[in-house]
C-alpha cells in the first residue's frame, strides 16, 4: 500500500491577510544585518511573505483569534507583581535574564557551564557558526504540513536569544528568566539548542517576558541525548504570548517538556516534534489554570518517523469565570514507523458553566503495527468526591484545591526531576490557597 501523507494545509489567499501581514512587517525589521544568520533570516522573511500571517479562518486558528498576536503594536499589558519568591529561585542554575526581551548582563550569571557553550544570538555575528544549520531550519521543517507563520516571523526578526550547544551532561540547569517591565513591550526571542550525542541538559524558563512575546526554540537532540524543559509562563494577567518549540530527535534520545501557565489573556504554545531516530521518546505536557479573561491554546504536532518510538501528550486545563482552553494535538505516524507507542490526553476541569474547552485530537497513521490512543474530556468537579472530602471535615475550598491538584497531577508527573516537580506543585498549591483568601 502506498501511503499518502497529508498535504500542507495552505492558507487561503485573502486581501485582509496581505494587508495585515504588510502592516506588521512595516513596523519590524530583520533582527540582524550581518553574520551567519542573515541568510536564514531572509529565507524566513520569504516564508512569511508567501504564507502571510494567520487569519481567523485558518484551520488551526479558528479557536484562537490571531488579531492581537499579529497587530503592528502590542496591546498594552499592565505589569503584575505576584509578591512571591520568583519560581526556581532555590535551584542551583545558570541564570540568564531578559527584561522585555532585552538581555540583562547585570542580572544574569556569566554564561559559563561545563560541557555547555552558551552564547547570545545578538553577539553572534561571525560568518560561520554551528547554529546556522539549525536556526530557522527546524522551524522551516515544521511549516509542513501545518503552516506556522508567527514562527517564521520570529526567525526573521528575533533580536536576541541563546545559542546553546551541549557536549556533555550539564551539571546544572540553564534558567531563562523573562521579566516584564514595560506595558507596551513587544519581545521577539529565538533560542537554538543543540545536544550532541549522549549530552544532557535541563532548561528552565519562567516569567511573563513582555506585554507581547513571540518566542521560538529550536532543539536538536542527537542520538542518546536527553533534553528536559520545564517552563512557568508568568502570571501577568494581560500579557500575550505566542511560543513555538521545534524539536528533532535522534536515536534513543529523550525530549521532555512541561509548561505551567496561570493567567495571561492570550497564550498560544505550539510544539512541533519529530522523532527521527529509532527508540526515541518525546513527552510534552502542560497544565494551565485560567480565571476570567484567559485564553490558552496548546497546539501540538508529533511526527513518528522511526521504529519503536514513544510519544506522550498530556494537557490539563482548569478553567473558571469564562476562561477558554484550546487543545489541538496531532500524532502523525509515518509509513514504516512501526512499533510506535503514541498517547495523547487533553482534559479540562470547568469550575463553572461560563468556561469553555475546545479540543481537536487528531491521529493520522500509516504504519500498521502501532499503538496509539487519545482521549479528551471536559467536565465539572466531581460532586460525589467533593462531598466525600467535606464529610471528612475538609472545608469546601480546600477540598476543591485538592481536587484541582489531583486533576493536574498526571501532567505534573511528566516532570522527571523530583525537586522541580515538587517546586511546581508547591507553587500551584500556593496560588490556589491565595486565590481563596
Amino acid at each position, binding site marked *: 500500500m502506498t501511503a499518502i501523507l497529508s498535504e500542507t494545509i495552505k492558507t487561503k489567499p485573502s486581501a485582509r491577510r496581505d494587508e495585515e501581514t504588510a502592516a506588521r512587517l512595516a513596523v519590524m525589521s530583520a533582527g540582524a544585518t550581518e553574520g551567519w544568520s542573515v541568510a536564514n533570516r531572509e529565507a524566513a522573511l520569504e516564508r512569511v511573505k508567501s504564507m502571510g500571517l494567520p487569519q481567523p479562518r485558518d484551520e488551526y486558528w479558528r479557536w484562537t483569534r490571531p488579531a492581537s498576536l499579529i497587530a503592528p503594536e502590542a496591546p498594552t499589558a499592565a505589569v503584575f507583581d505576584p509578591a512571591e519568591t520568583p519560581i526556581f529561585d532555590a535551584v542551583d542554575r545558570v541564570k540568564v535574564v531578559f527584561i522585555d526581551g532585552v538581555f540583562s548582563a547585570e542580572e544574569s550569571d556569566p554564561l559559563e557551564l561545563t560541557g555547555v557553550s552558551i552564547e547570545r544570538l545578538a553577539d553572534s555575528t561571525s560568518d560561520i557558526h554551528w547554529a546556522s544549520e539549525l536556526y530557522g531550519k527546524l522551524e522551516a521543517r515544521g511549516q509542513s504540513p501545518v503552516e506556522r507563520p508567527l514562527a517564521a516571523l520570529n526567525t526573521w526578526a528575533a533580536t536576541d536569544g541563546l545559542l546553546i550547544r551541549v557536549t556533555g551532561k550539564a551539571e546544572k540547569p540553564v534558567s531563562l528568566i523573562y521579566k516584564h517591565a514595560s506595558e507596551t513591550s513587544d519581545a521577539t526571542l529565538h533560542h537554538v539548542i543543540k545536544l550532541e550525542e549522549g549530552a544532557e541538559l535541563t532548561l528552565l524558563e519562567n516569567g511573563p517576558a513582555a506585554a507581547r512575546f513571540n518566542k521560538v526554540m529550536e532543539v536538536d537532540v542527537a542520538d542518546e541525548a536527553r533534553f528536559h524543559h520545564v517552563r512557568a509562563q508568568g502570571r501577568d494577567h494581560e500579557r500575550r504570548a505566542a511560543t513555538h518549540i521545534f524539536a528533532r530527535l535522534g536515536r534513543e534520545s529523550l525530549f521532555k517538556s512541561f509548561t505551567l501557565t496561570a493567567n495571561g489573556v492570550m497564550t498560544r504554545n505550539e510544539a512541533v516534534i519529530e522523532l527521527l531516530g529509532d527508540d526515541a521518546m518525546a513527552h510534552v505536557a502542560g497544565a494551565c489554570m485560567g480565571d476570567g479573561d484567559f485564553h490558552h491554546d496548546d497546539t501540538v504536532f508529533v511526527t513518528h518517523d522511526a521504529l519503536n518510538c514513544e510519544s506522550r501528550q498530556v494537557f490539563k486545563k482548569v478553567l473558571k469565570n469564562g476562561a477558554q482552553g484550546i487543545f489541538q494535538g496531532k500524532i502523525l505516524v509515518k509509513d514504516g514507523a512501526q512499533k510506535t507507542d503514541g498517547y495523547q490526553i487533553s482534559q479540562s476541569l470547568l469550575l463553572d458553566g461560563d468556561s469553555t474547552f475546545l479540543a481537536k485530537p487528531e491521529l493520522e497513521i500509516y504504519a500498521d503495527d502501532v499503538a496509539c490512543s487519545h482521549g479528551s474530556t471536559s467536565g465539572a468537579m*466531581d460532586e460525589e468526591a467533593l*462531598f466525600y472530602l467535606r*464529610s*471528612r471535615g475538609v472545608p469546601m475550598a480546600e477540598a476543591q484545591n*485538592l481536587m484541582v491538584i*489531583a486533576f493536574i497531577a498526571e501532567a505534573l508527573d511528566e516532570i522527571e526531576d523530583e525537586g522541580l516537580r515538587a517546586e511546581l506543585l508547591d507553587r500551584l498549591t500556593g496560588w490556589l490557597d491565595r486565590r481563596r483568601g
Partner: protein
Amino acid sequence: MLEIKNLHVKLEEEDKQILKGVDLTVEAGKVHAIMGPNGSGKSTLSYVLSGRGGYEVTEGEASLLGEDLLDMDPEERAAAGVFLAFQYPVEIPGVGNMTFLRTAVNAQRKARGEEEISAADFLKLVREKAKTLKIDAEMLKRPVNVGFSGGEKKRNEILQMAMLEPKLCILDETDSGLDVDAMKLVSDGVNALRDEGRGFLVITHYQRLLDHIKPDVVHIMADGRIIKTGGPELALEVEQNGYADLLAEVQ
C-alpha cells in the same frame, strides 16, 4: 446525643417525599441499628445527617449534643463529630490516601481550635491504626479508594473513622460487598471504637452484621418512618420472618 424529631425529607430534584416523620434518639455509648427493606429511606437518613446535597428538609429537626445539624455544611458536621462510613466509598484519583487523611485530621483539629498534628505523630498514629485493620503501607500510598477491592474500601472507611474519632458514627450498609473474613475485620475495627462517649447508628439489610456489632437497640424503618423499635431480638425476628409480617402488623 443524636436527636431526630419528626424529620421530613424530600428529593430536591423531584417532588418525592422520602422521609415522612422520623423520630430517633441515639444515646452516647449505645449502638442503634436501623433495618428495613430497600427504598425505606435508611440511606437517605444517613445522607441527610451528614449533609449531602440534593435533599430538602421540609419539616422536623436533627441535632447532635444540642447543636442543630441541619444548618451546618458537611465539614462543620464532621467537625462537630458526625462521621458517615459510606456504602460506596468514593474513588478520588490523584489524591493520595495519606494526604487525604492528614488533611482531614488537621482540618477538623483546626475547626475545633486545636493544633495541627505533626507529620511524625500522624505517621505513627496512622501506621498503628492501619495495622489493626490490616491496611498495608502500599494502600496508604495509593490514591483514595482507587483500585481498592470492596473489602479494602470498607476497611479504609473504618481507618478514617478511627483517625477522626467522631462522636456519632453512621455506618451505611458497611456489610455490603464483604466476605465473612472482611466482615469480621471491619466489625472488630468498629467494636474497638465503642466507647462511653460515642454513639453508633448502624444501617443494614441483614442481621449478620449485627452478630459482630451487637446493637443495644434495633429500629425497623419502612416507607420513611420508624415503624418498630426493640432489642437485639427484633433483628433475629426480621432475619427469620422477613419484613412482611412487621409491615402487615403496622398497617
